[in-house]
């Protein structure tokens, strides 16, 4: 049924974008939007064998202008993210995801400088840990449905000065997610006890100014889990439900100075969760003192709280109108506020707090193929470092090289 809906919506979008296109550039009623980015790369990690991975992002949209102050924008987004190097504490290199997103936004001009944009969106995401797993069976497959209300205030029409307020809400479901251990333990009285643990209500509020190609913003996101409960200090699930919060501040610009095209950005995120973590040193570990720090079963309060700094400084050197040499550095530094690092034997060191850094140095060539397309060849050196050396499940300290090619088309 969902596939049929997806098919129908896409066909409607496609038909309209075609019908609009035939009206030519003079048409003010329909404006098609087309954006596609393809990349494919080879990844050589310091540990393990080399692998390949790529990304596909295709957006097909249509802006329908009913009259000068009323318009409707529909957008379909297909996104595939293949294997690749990942920040620590996120996912395996071989994980891949495939998502479909549908968004319809109504744009209404209230006064000359104020526009409101209510909208609805639906997305479906598939995830799998490797090529041998069926997309439909992914543990973290996700459905999301929700709406938004955004308002744009144009404070400087000459220099593209806009202040945007946005509130959006999503009902997020993970239909396949289950906790096998809890299912096993609770099989006697309920088969549903461990289902829907990741289901959540996600809310997002942001205030973002933009002026003269400078941009920034303050974003607050909170996730209320519907079923997942917090582990209490005695090591059992209590009555409180999990709640995660993110506050992000960001700033950046996109300017061309002489032959240098620069688009640096910096962001700072504070993540808070009321969820705690119970570390079992080995299968079947038992302990009566969960808070001593040296027990086989140790509870880490505030395990998931962190502050993260993300600095991205890409620079393109415009050699000719078609050719450019690009380079850049990206640093992601995550400092956990409560979580101590572990050594290779899975033992906590309570004298410090875990800190991860992922640095990416990149260099490449960019060529403008024609009016709508760009081609890039890029080399990246990735260095992951952490004071956490327990790497049984995820790598924390590694070096990687990657070479990729990418095409980008925007119309």
């Amino acid at each position, binding site marked *: 049924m969902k*596939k049929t809906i*997806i*098919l129908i919506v*896409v066909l409607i979008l*496609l*038909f309209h*974008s*075609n*019908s609009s*296109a*035939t*009206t*030519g*550039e003079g048409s003010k009623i329909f404006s*098609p939007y*087309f954006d*596609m980015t*393809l990349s*494919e790369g080879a990844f*050589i990690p*310091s540990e393990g*064998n*080399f692998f*390949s*991975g*790529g*990304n*596909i992002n*295709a957006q*097909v949209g249509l802006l329908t202008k009913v009259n000068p102050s009323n318009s409707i924008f529909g957008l379909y987004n*297909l996104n*595939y993210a*293949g294997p690749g190097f990942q920040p620590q504490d996120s996912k395996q290199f071989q994980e*891949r995801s*495939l998502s479909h997103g549908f968004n319809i936004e109504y744009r209404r001009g209230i006064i000359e400088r104020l526009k409101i944009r209510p909208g609805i969106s639906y997305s479906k995401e*598939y995830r799998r840990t490797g*090529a*041998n797993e069926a*997309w439909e069976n992914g543990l973290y497959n996700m459905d999301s449905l929700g709406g938004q209300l955004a308002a744009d205030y144009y404070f400087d029409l000459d220099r593209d000065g806009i202040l945007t307020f946005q509130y959006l809400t999503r009902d997020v479901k993970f239909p396949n997610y289950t906790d096998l251990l809890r299912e096993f333990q609770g099989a006697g009285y309920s088969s549903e006890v461990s289902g829907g643990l990741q289901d959540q209500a996600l809310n997002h509020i942001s205030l973002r100014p933009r002026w003269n190609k400078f941009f920034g913003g303050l974003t607050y996101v909170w996730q209320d889990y519907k079923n997942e409960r917090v582990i209490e200090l005695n090591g059992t699930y209590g009555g409180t439900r999990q709640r995660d919060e993110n506050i992000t501040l960001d700033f950046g610009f996109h300017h061309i100075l002489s032959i240098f095209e620069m688009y640096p950005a910096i962001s700072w995120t504070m993540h808070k969760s009321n969820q705690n973590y119970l570390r079992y040193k080995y299968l079947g570990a038992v302990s009566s003192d969960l808070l001593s720090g040296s027990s086989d079963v140790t509870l880490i309060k505030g395990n998931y709280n962190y502050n993260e700094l993300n600095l991205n400084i890409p620079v393109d050197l415009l*050699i*000719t109108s078609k*050719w450019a*040499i690009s380079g850049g550095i990206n640093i992601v530094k995550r400092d956990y506020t409560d979580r101590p690092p572990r050594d290779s034997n899975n033992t906590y060191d309570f004298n410090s707090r875990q800190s991860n850094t992922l640095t990416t140095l990149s*260099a*490449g*060539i960019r060529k403008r*193929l*024609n*009016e*709508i*397309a760009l081609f890039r*060849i890029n*080399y990246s*050196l990735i260095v992951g470092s952490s004071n956490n050396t327990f790497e049984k499940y995820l790598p924390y300290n590694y070096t990687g*090289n990657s*070479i990729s090619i990418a*095409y980008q*088309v925007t*119309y």
Partner: protein
Amino acid sequence: MKRTIIFTVLLLLIPCTSYANSIDFGTKATQLAGEIIANPAGFFYEFQQDLETTTPLPPGKTYGFQTGIFPTLLPATYANLSGKYRLHGEGKISPFLPQLDIAGGYWNMIATKIATEQSKDISNLDFNGYYLDLIMSSSVSPKIRTFYGYKYSQLKASLKLNKAVDIAGAQVTTFDSGFKDDFLIAGIEHITGINKFWSIQVNYGIKEQVLASKISWYGKYFEFGLNIYPEGILVIHPVLNFHLNF
């Protein structure tokens, strides 16, 4: 300029050479072989996509023919032929109606016929496929067309043996496999000169979640392509097709 680019590319490659020794090609080859054995139809279907024509006919052309040369006819021995016919020219009936093309094709693997004739154990080995697609296209500027479409694609592999062989304890005399899916296509085409085109497109299989992206340069007779199958076994396929449009 070219020297600068070559120099830069070489500089980029230098850091990778230090890692060359750590690459285990033997293990990688074994892994790839395992993936082919696990999903042979998926592997061979990627070659079928290489020969499928999913771009619109050039403006003003009514019909066309295409045959895949590399890696389909050579070295995969896919004897193949595709045809394309314009059902409606852009703006012909109404300015709001796009160009509509119908296309389809068939292939058969010659190597399987040779194997059948030369082997005493094989009674019949058939490896073939066909596809049918509808492509809508319309101009969004004098040099740019967007195109969208639907494609039904099928591959069939069947093997009949003269005597049963033991596979994991089961006596097997026939083996049937295949692949079929409904695809959605979205792409954009840019005219770079007289009889010179460049296009990029994504094909998405709805049932099997198959993804393919194609980047093509084509002229009056030949199409050079770079097909990328991100979840495939051989991820990047360089492609050469021959076509004639009238």
